[in-house]
């Protein structure tokens, strides 16, 4: 099948700003070679739609607004997307927690299989995706006429701006009576977002307490303009909030520089960070598995190493 498949890309945004994961999903969609439209759903999304319309190579931006869409309720989002899918060959969704929540529903509504966490588009029907926590890569060919994929955005470069697509609004689906939004609790941070940060400073269980986690990592992150991450062990121990978690079951990141402090390097953690450009490991155990993936390893107690590192950074 030729690469000229029309793609509906679902935008990822925070209500005011388009996330660059949307641009990265557009890049993945470009591998399919056809027209690319973007859907921006939520409430009060005009500003976000305007940002999406500027991405180079985008034909059209669709907006849909309702309270349920803003609350990211999967029932509403999947009904909307599956309805629009009639006009497209492919639906491409950034693999965020919201995307992972509704994309399989879209696939089930269309009675097609889901291609999850795509890291490479080989051709219109062939995709590469990681399995077994990234320890193997699976190349799969689909026989589905319509395709639904989630895109592992860290594997693609962000599509640049330079376009001026038309913006059209589309109707939101009726709300489901079976689900209601109750509340949300956002983690407030003045650091860059983990998924978008160029530098990440990450801590493990060795840090010993939530206070130590903050005291040790915050000044270094502030100095480097870095985001703060954590291993599962540190999150489980209550040293860091759960959305700091980097790994198979947390966030997958690929910054320019990843500094792992007091992290042993379990398989599930490596799955979330081993595509970082440069990895630094600081650990007092010279046998820690993290050293097998680190470009620069420093064996030593973080308590003595970090003050020296702060000094060396000037």
């Amino acid at each position, binding site marked *: 099948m030729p690469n000229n498949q029309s793609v509906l890309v679902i935008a990822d945004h*925070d209500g005011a700003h388009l996330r660059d994961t949307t641009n990265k999903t557009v890049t993945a969609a470009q591998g399919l070679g056809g027209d690319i439209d973007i859907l921006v759903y939520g409430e009060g999304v005009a500003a976000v739609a305007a940002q999406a319309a500027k991405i180079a190579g985008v034909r059209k931006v669709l907006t849909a607004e309702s309270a349920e869409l803003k*609350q*990211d*309720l*999967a*029932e509403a989002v*999947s009904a909307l997307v599956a309805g629009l899918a009639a006009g497209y060959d492919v639906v491409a969704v950034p693999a965020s*927690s*919201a995307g*992972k*929540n509704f994309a*399989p529903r879209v*696939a*089930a509504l269309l009675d097609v*299989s*889901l291609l*999850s*966490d795509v890291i490479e588009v080989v051709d219109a029907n062939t995709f590469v995706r*990681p*399995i*077994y926590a*990234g*320890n*193997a*890569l*699976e*190349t*799969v*060919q689909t*026989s*589905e006429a319509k395709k639904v994929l989630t895109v592992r955005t860290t594997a693609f470069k962000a599509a640049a701006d330079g376009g001026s697509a038309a913006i059209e609004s589309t109707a939101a689906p009726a709300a*489901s*009576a*079976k*689900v*209601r939004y*109750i509340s*949300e*609790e*956002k983690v407030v941070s003045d650091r860059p977002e983990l*998924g978008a940060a160029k530098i990440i400073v990450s801590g493990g269980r060795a840090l010993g307490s939530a206070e130590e986690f903050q005291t040790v990592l915050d000044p270094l992150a502030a100095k*480097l303009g870095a985001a703060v991450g954590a291993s599962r062990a540190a999150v489980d121990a209550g040293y860091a*909030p*759960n959305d700091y978690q980097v790994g*198979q*079951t947390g966030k997958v990141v690929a910054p320019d*520089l990843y500094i792992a402090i007091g992290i042993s390097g379990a*398989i599930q953690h490596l799955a979330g960070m*081993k595509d970082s450009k*440069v990895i*630094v490991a600081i650990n007092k155990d010279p046998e820690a598995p993290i*050293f097998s*993936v680190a*470009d*620069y390893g*420093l*064996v030593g107690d973080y308590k003595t*190493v970090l003050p*020296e590192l702060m000094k*060396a950074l000037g």
Partner: protein
Amino acid sequence: MKLLVPVKRVLDYNVKVRVKADQSGVDLANVKMSMNPFDEIAVEEATRLKEKGIATEVVAVSIGPAQARETVVTALTIGADRGILIQTDQDIEPLAVAKLLKAVIEQEQPDLVIMGKQAIDGDNNATGQMLATLLDWPQATFASKVVIENGEAQVTREVDGGLQTIGVKLPAVITTDLRLNEPRYASLPNIMKAKKKPLDVKTVADYGVDVTPRLTVVKVTEPAKRQAGIKVADAAELVANLKTAGVL
């Protein structure tokens, strides 16, 4: 209230994965297999709901080879009352698994399905959402807290940026995240008791579901290995190297 808990037999999470030399897949011969860790959390949660008097019966179901019986028995050991094994040697894709589970649910009529958010082999994170869609039930994925009252499950979900709490009317599908609970270890008396609990063995044909694969695995390869790194003596040398590498 009746609960259904789907469980999957997967390569144990501690085992280092080996890709076969002919690129046909991952080597699963003579390696330790276990219950998918997220499913263990699901069985534990169902068991706790039974201990609180909210659930009256917990049914564990697995789809897989003859050896997946062990996985069902593990669920019975944790606290499930009854098991179903749909025995097949075929590798069944998430959409077909969801269709098989839907057929089981039509027979069993549970009020709630609790299952893992993803299996650590295929890493798809899709079956629960697909099942909810096929049943036209509401879903609450990535659950870190579940409260059941007045015919509704109030579920706190782990989402990017924090936590979200939603209410889903029963019947519903809940998928578990890691922090929902800490699964218990099986005690010897419970292992003995589990052996006496009923376990029905079925076939895919019993449910009349088309499980023909929609995807063809072209090849399975090893990811690119990282270049071996260097050990530096101190922080100053580290910073100098990072500056040379252009990341500082």
